[in-house]
C-alpha cells in the first residue's frame, strides 16, 4: 500500500509568477509593437479612460465631451411632486440616456431606487441590460447601498427614495470621486443638497404623434439646460428628442425628424 507523499502547499505555487513575458522582449521595437497590441485589445471603456463616452447630441453638450469619471451629475425636471410626476418629467429618461453609450462599450451601470424601470425603454435607449444592475427598493439603507455600488460600478443612477441629508450626499459624492465612478442623481422634488459638478435641467417638453385618438406617441422634444463648474459655468440650452421615434435620443435637426406622420 502506497501512502501519498505530501505535496507542496497550493499557496506556494500561486504567489510568484513565472518569468515575466517582457524579459524576452527587451528590444525597443518589440516593446513598441506590444504596446500597440495592448492598445488594440484594450476594452473600449477601460478603467484608465478619464472620460466615459455619451451618445450624441450630449457629447457636444457636456463640457468634457462625455462623463468625466469621479463627478456627480444632477438631472432634474419640472416634476410636480407626485411619484407619477417625477416619473413623467423626463429626468429618468435623461439620466439613462447619459449611460447609453458607456453601457454599449462594456461599462457596468446600476440603477438604485427606481421601482418600476421600463426595461424595454432602457433597451431602446441603447443600454446593455445584461450589464445594468437594477436595485429597485434599497429602502432606508439607500445611501449605504449606493456607496457599495459605487465601489465597483462605473455609472450609478440614484433616485433617492428619501430626502437626502447633506452629510450623506457629500459622502456619496466623495466616494464617487475616490472610486472614479460617475454618479447621476435624479433627486425629484426633494433636491440634492450638495452642489453637483454638472446639472442638467429639463424644461419644456412636448410629445409628438398623438392627436385625438389617431396615431401613437412617437417622440418627445425637450429643452435641456446644462450648467456646471469650470468650463460649463455658463448655462447652455439645447433642444433634443428624447425619446426619438426609435426610442433612442436624437438631436433636434432635420436628420432627427424621422418618424411621426
Amino acid at each position, binding site marked *: 500500500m*502506497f501512502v*501519498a507523499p*505530501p*505535496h*507542496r*502547499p*497550493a499557496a506556494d*505555487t*500561486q504567489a510568484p509568477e513565472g518569468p515575466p513575458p517582457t524579459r524576452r522582449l527587451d528590444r525597443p521595437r518589440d516593446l513598441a509593437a506590444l504596446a500597440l497590441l495592448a492598445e488594440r485589445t484594450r*476594452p473600449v471603456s477601460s478603467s484608465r479612460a478619464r472620460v466615459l463616452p455619451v451618445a450624441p447630441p450630449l457629447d457636444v453638450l457636456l463640457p468634457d465631451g462625455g462623463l468625466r469619471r469621479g463627478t456627480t451629475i444632477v438631472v432634474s425636471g419640472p416634476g410636480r411632486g*407626485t411619484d*407619477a*410626476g*417625477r416619473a*413623467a*418629467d423626463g*429626468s*429618468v*429618461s435623461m439620466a*439613462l440616456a447619459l449611460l447609453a453609450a458607456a453601457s454599449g462599450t*462594456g461599462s*457596468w451601470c*446600476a440603477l438604485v431606487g*427606481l421601482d*418600476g*424601470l*421600463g*426595461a*424595454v*425603454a*432602457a433597451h*431602446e435607449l441603447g443600454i446593455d*441590460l*445584461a450589464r*445594468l*444592475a*437594477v*436595485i*429597485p*427598493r434599497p429602502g432606508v439603507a439607500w445611501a449605504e*447601498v449606493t456607496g*457599495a455600488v459605487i*465601489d*465597483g460600478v462605473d455609472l450609478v443612477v440614484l433616485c433617492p427614495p428619501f430626502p437626502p441629508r447633506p452629510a450623506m450626499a457629500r459622502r456619496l459624492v466623495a466616494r464617487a470621486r475616490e472610486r472614479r465612478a460617475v454618479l447621476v442623481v435624479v433627486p425629484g422634488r426633494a433636491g440634492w443638497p450638495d452642489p453637483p459638478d454638472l446639472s442638467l435641467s429639463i424644461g*419644456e*417638453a412636448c410629445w409628438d*404623434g*398623438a*392627436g*385625438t*385618438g389617431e*396615431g*401613437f*406617441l412617437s*417622440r*418627445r422634444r425637450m429643452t435641456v439646460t446644462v450648467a456646471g463648474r469650470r468650463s460649463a459655468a455658463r448655462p447652455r440650452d439645447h433642444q433634443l428628442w428624447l*425619446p*426619438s*421615434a426609435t*426610442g433612442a435620443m436624437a438631436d433636434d435637426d432635420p436628420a432627427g425628424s424621422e418618424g411621426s406622420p
Partner: protein
Amino acid sequence: MNRLVVVRCPDLLDEDEGGEALRLFAQVVEAVEAYCPWVTTVRPGLCSLPARGPARYFGGEDRLVRLITEVGVAVTPVEVGVADGLFAAVLAAQGGVIVPAEGTADFLAPLPVSVLGQPDLAELLNRLGVRTLGEFAALPEAHVLGRFGSDGSAGHRVAGGRSGELGGRHRPGGERRAAGSGAPATTTTTAAATAAQSGFWGGVSDTDARAGRALAAVQDLLGPDGVTIAHLQGGRGPAQRARFVTWSGRGAHPDPAPGGPWPGQIPPPAPMVVHPALLRAELVGADGEPIAVSARGLLTGVPCRLSVEETAWSAVTAWAGPWPSDERWWSRSRQRSARLQAVMGSAAHLLLIERGRWWVEATYG
C-alpha cells in the same frame, strides 16, 4: 469531516442487463460488512465506511485497507482508499492511496479541476489559467462566490479540503452572507489569473469582476433579491415585455432578442417607468361624464381630464388609441382590456381600462 474508507469496484460501476454487477457488488458489501457494520453504498460499485473505529480495532489504516482488499478481490477487482470526506476518499480509492489526516488539500492540489464534475466551471477555470484544484483553492473565497455562484463556492471549499463533498444545491442567500463576512477581499491572488484574460475571451473581464464584488456586497445588505437584471421577452403590455431576475453573479449573459409578432403591442418608444402597482385613474369628458371603451373597442366620449390617485385634474391635450387586447380568450381567466396613451401637457401616461375602471400602467418618463 469524517475519515472514510472507500471501496470502489471499477468493473461494477455500470449496471448490466442481468443485474450480475449488482449481485456481485452486494457480495462485496456483505464481505466488507463482516469488518464494519456501517457500510454505506454511495452508488453501484462504490461503498464507504467510517475508518476511525475499524482502523483502531484492526491495528492501523493500512492493515484495515489490506483486509478489505483481500475480502474484496475474492469477489471482484477492488480499489480501496482512505481520506477525509467522501470526495477525497473516492479519488484516493481510484489511486489506491491512504491520504494522511489533514493532508486532504495537499492530496487534491495537483488534480485537475475537471474532477469536480462541473464541466462549465472546469472550462471557465481552465480559460482563466486555473488548472488544478490547488490553484482553485488558493483563490479568495469571496471572489469565488461572487464570480462562480454557490456551486462554484461548494467546489472551492471541497478543493481546499474544507468540505467533504459537493452535496446538493446550497441556498444562495445564506451562502453569500456567510462568505461576505469571511475572507477579506484582496485582489492580489486573482489578479495574476484574470489580468491576462480580462475581457478577451468574453464572459469574464476585470470590469465584470469589480461589479460582481460590489453587487455581492449589496446583496449582503438587502438579500439576494435586492439586485436584479432585466430580461426582455415577448408580450403585449410593457409589464409583460420585461422580467426582472435575481442577479446571480455569473457575469453578463446576453439575452436573445425576443422575436415574433405580438398583435396589440404598441410601437416604440416604450414607457420609461412601468408602475409596479397600477395607479388608480379617472378619465372624464368635457361634462365630467366617465369615459369608457365600448364593446367595439371605441371610446364612449372625448377624453378631457385625467386624475391619478385622486390628485388634481389635469387636462388631456392629446391621446392615441384605444387598443383593445383580448387576452387568454380561450380560458376562464379571459381578460378584456384596452390601452390608451394620454398626453397631459409635457407628461404622458399609458392607461389601461379593465372592467370599466382606468389605471395608469406606465408613464413615458
